[in-house]
């Protein structure tokens, strides 16, 4: 089977800790959290115990034509903005972008919940016009694959479309399936990522499952606390991330800057419960990614843990990770800085790992003051470390029992 090298030649992110590489790195180096008080949605927030949210609280200067923006909900604004910046940074020839050799793998947790909420409002409206107020545009704005196809429309992309919607593994699946599309010669490049907009429905779901942080509402920057003894749950957040994956020779021949290489990917399922984390499933997905990359665990320098800050999830991940890596690679839970950006977390964590590779540092897991003894079998980072990362692994796990892991390698250029 054809197996080609796949490199990353551009990326862009919208995160609760900033937009630019410099701003994101500054937050990581200085230990600044992007978790803020949960803003009021006028519907659910009064009933939710968790009062914190990974918040994008800076203005974004969108410059989209109405012919593009008319089919976009907030989630697609995020997605199209990072896609636009990624394509611009890539320097790809416009003729290549529309040639069919570039595809899109992009998703979100559930399309645009704010548009869906407006649709439901019409059901209870007294307005005489309610009969006609749900239109094609509302569907195009809110459907599950709205991010992917608004991107294809905006840039005239005609290659394959993959739109994963697997909650927390959405964008890591985008990256993984995009990687496989290029690796096996189906596409020469894939624009991959994920996005999720401000949404309290997701907070309510986790809150009702007693999985949301609620003990730090007055001090949002102190939560989430992955692997810490005082952790009390995850913090939902918003954001977006996009990466351009490109066949190595194609990138090299056009003189593209190479940010890193993807050398392995795995995705499996726990084969049972849809909520509970599963040691066997996570252990298997880590092992499968190493096998796909054809490397041993000793080759990995850094692990970006899923590390949401839940009571059991962190323990299971630490045990599974420790069973394969021991105390070899350093481990950081990047969600400690920005909360869980859901469908975009895998892409954002990949981008941050690339930044860390480029700048030679590893940030600590924020708020990790006292490691839970049940999570102590891995090498936690509790202080900023200067370190060369040649190979890093990004782990993500989702409701539905979906597990992913992909492995990034630094390329010396």
């Amino acid at each position, binding site marked *: 089977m054809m197996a080609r090298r796949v490199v990353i030649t551009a990326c862009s992110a919208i995160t609760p800790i900033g937009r630019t590489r410099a701003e994101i790195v500054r937050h990581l180096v200085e230990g600044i959290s992007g978790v803020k008080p949960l803003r009021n949605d006028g519907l659910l927030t009064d009933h939710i115990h968790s009062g914190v949210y990974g918040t994008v609280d800076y203005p974004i200067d969108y410059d989209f*034509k109405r012919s593009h923006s008319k089919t976009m909900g907030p989630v697609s604004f995020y997605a199209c903005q990072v896609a636009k910046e990624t394509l611009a940074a890539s320097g790809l020839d416009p003729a290549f972008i529309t040639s069919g050799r570039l595809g899109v793998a992009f998703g979100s947790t559930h399309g645009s919940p704010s548009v869906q909420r407006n649709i439901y409002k019409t059901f209870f409206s007294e307005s005489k016009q309610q*009969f006609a107020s749900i239109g094609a545009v509302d569907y195009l704005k809110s459907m599950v694959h709205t991010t992917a196809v608004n991107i294809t429309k905006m840039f005239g992309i005609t290659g394959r479309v993959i739109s994963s919607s697997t909650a927390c593994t959405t964008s890591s699946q985008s990256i993984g399936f995009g990687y496989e599309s290029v690796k096996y010669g189906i596409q020469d490049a894939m624009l991959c990522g994920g996005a999720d907009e401000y949404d309290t429905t997701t907070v309510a779901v986790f809150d009702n499952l007693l999985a949301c942080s609620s003990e730090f509402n007055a001090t949002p920057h102190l939560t989430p606390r992955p692997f810490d003894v005082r952790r009390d749950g995850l913090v939902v957040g918003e954001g977006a991330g996009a990466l351009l994956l490109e066949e190595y020779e194609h990138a090299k021949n056009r003189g593209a800057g190479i940010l890193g290489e993807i050398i392995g990917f795995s995705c499996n399922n726990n084969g049972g419960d849809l909520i509970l984390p599963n040691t066997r499933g996570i252990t298997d997905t880590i092992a499968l990614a190493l096998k796909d990359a054809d490397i041993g665990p000793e080759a990995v320098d850094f692990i970006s843990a899923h590390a949401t800050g839940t009571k059991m999830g962190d323990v299971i991940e630490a045990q599974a990770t420790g069973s394969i890596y021991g105390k070899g690679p350093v481990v950081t839970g990047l969600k400690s800085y920005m909360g869980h950006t859901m469908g975009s977390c895998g892409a954002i964590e990949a981008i941050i790992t690339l930044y860390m590779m480029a700048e030679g540092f590893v940030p600590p897991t924020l708020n990790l003051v006292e490691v839970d003894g049940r999570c102590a079998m891995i090498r936690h980072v509790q202080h900023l470390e200067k370190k060369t990362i040649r190979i890093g692994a990004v782990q993500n796990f989702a409701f539905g029992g979906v597990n992913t892991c992909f492995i990034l390698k630094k390329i010396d250029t």
Partner: protein
Amino acid sequence: MRRDAIESSILKIFAEKFEIEAPGVDDDLRDGYEFDSIDAIELLHEIEILLDTQLTRAEKKNAMEIRTINQIVDYAAALAAARCQTDSAGPECLSTTGQ
């Protein structure tokens, strides 16, 4: 509703809802302003609000070939006139066909 009032309202809708400012009344909206089928559906909803009525499926289908502001105004004026013939004619209907 007079035809000139309908035209004024339609141009206001184009400016506010579709960000299309002062198009020529005989310009092809699809070619000149990227006004597509999605926009057409949205426009029909705006016409329903303007005329305070609900369009039938047949009336909506009749609108799908419309390309210009003039055609849109003719379409809306015809709808207004038809409503006046079927409804008990109020004061507005007296000037429906006024030019």
